[in-house]
């Protein structure tokens, strides 16, 4: 599903070169639930950006679902993000001016799905996260947990190959976190590939496999 070989990324902070990723290699199989764990500054956000096709590496190769990502243009990467990846962010990242329903609809609009089809799939996605009755609420009218559910609905509405979650529970209390994690388990059982990035061991342990990242280097930890 994901095949990363010798990936390197260097940032320039002032005059100093900071190596965010240092020859990282990684393999993730379809239908896996993998967590990537590391303290802040370990390079996990960079890894997540690269896996999510939001950023490109300086060196190394990255293959997503058989596609050699480094060979694609920015325009094509937008299509790949749209069709293959569903994002869930720590800060939810919903568009505040759009209702829950419209936020979920957004990736389908970019896929140029027909209106009736869109409405149907949005409804299904919101039902799967248990928010069918909140479709017309604005994000500000929803609780943190509910907002994250909307974000998850937005991630799954396109039936992506990969769900990429960056600290999805980071901004939530423990009870809500548990509910969100239950949702991820549910999605995993339904056959979705999930990559979850976290700094919380307790969360990481819930995945079937945890990958440890420190100072840009990857090591696998058995759970």
């Amino acid at each position, binding site marked *: 599903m994901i095949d990363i070989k010798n990936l390197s990324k260097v940032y320039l902070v002032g005059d100093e070169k900071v190596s965010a990723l240092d020859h990282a290699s990684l393999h993730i199989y379809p239908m896996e639930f993998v967590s990537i764990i590391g303290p802040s500054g370990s390079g996990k956000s960079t890894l997540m*950006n690269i896996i*999510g096709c*939001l*950023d490109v590496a300086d060196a190394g190769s990255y293959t997503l679902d058989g596609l050699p990502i480094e060979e694609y243009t*920015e*325009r094509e990467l*937008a*299509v790949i*993000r*749209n*069709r293959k990846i569903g*994002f869930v*962010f720590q*800060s939810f*990242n*919903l*568009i505040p*001016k759009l209702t829950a329903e419209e936020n979920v609809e*957004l*990736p389908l*609009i*970019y*896929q140029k799905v027909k209106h009736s089809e869109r409405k149907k799939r949005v409804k299904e996605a919101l039902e799967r996260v248990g928010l069918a009755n909140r479709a017309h609420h604005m994000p500000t009218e929803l609780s943190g947990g509910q907002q994250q559910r909307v974000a998850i609905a*937005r991630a799954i509405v*396109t039936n992506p190959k990969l769900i990429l979650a960056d600290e999805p529970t980071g901004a939530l209390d423990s009870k809500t976190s548990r509910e969100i994690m239950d949702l991820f388990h549910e999605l995993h059982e339904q056959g979705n590939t999930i990559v979850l990035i976290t700094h919380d061991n307790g969360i990481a342990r819930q995945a079937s496999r945890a990958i440890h990242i420190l100072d840009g280097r990857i090591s696998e930890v058995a759970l």
Partner: protein
Amino acid sequence: MITSFKMALRSIGSNKMRAVLTMLGIIIGVMALVVLVSLVNGATTSVTNSVSGLGSNMISVSVSDNKGKPVYLDTVDEWMAKTDVGLIAPYLSTTSTVVADGESSEITVYGVTPEFYDVQGLTLSMGRFIKSSDIANHTYVCVINENTATEAIGYIDCIGEAIHIGGIEYTIVGVLSDNSSLTTGITSNSVIAYMPFTSIIRLSDSISSEVTKFYVSAPENKTIDEVKQAVTKVLLERFEDDEDAFRISSQSVLEDAMSNITSILTLLLGGIAAISLIVGGIGIMNIMLVTVTERTREIGIRKAVGASRSTILTQFLMEAVVLCMLGCGLGIFLSWVILQVVTTVVSSLAMTFALDGKVVLIAVLFCFLIGVVFGLYPANKAAKMKPIDALHYGG
């Protein structure tokens, strides 16, 4: 396309106050353009109508050198009979004094033939005009305008009254109504009398019975240029092919000059209005730049879920264009309101100021262009943002 149009409307609607303030520049620009040009056009149409209403089917001729063959009334009658021009109206003019209630004032006197009435497009309010029998009998009658009647007699209904011009008593046989055409409108404040061509000769020593000035009207089936050619031919024959012996001028020259002036005026005012539209466009660009910065995060989210560069570009460009077009629509509507009000207020001038379709079209196209031109830079700025930078903006 429809979806991005709806998105643009929503985004504009979410900050109405700002949208209206932004559009204000465009609204004022469009109003300036449409109202000014429509006003000029309205005024032009009404003035041109009154000019051509009396003048465009008439030429005026003056003879400066008769080559020893002076033109008399008989000659004019001959010309009228044999050539296919319309009516020829010879005239003489002089100034004299009119005495009323012991006070004397200046008066312009025209010696005319019956044809003068039709050629000049005069209108009688009462009585009759000079007749051919007056010419033949050298009668002491005259026709005056309403203003003269008020000034010299004291009231308008003065048919049969006597008027003393240059010490000679004339009987008033007709009163011309003022304001019936542009010429009479302009001369409505002057003191004027018309008398038989043959009678005016006695008024002053300096006037002879020779015809040196006359008007020619075109018959209905001829253009003014054809008449001009025919008259020129006749005059050349008489004056030994000397083109400098006479001068022919037509009102169409006047019309040309006027349309020149008005088109320059339209261009000038339109240009000024266009500048204010451009200023409005810059206002739009400013706000769009602010909007793009404010919505950096939104752009990041949209890019993360699959919006490409061109999608973001279209979205922001659409917003700028929709903003411009809304302003344009409002501006046109307000212009229409203003023109209606102006038309009602100056209804006494009998001018109508209607929205000029061409100007509206130009305004719409211009606004669209401004939306695109000034929207492109901010939209491109938004489109070029990197998704990660945009996502991490402001937290």
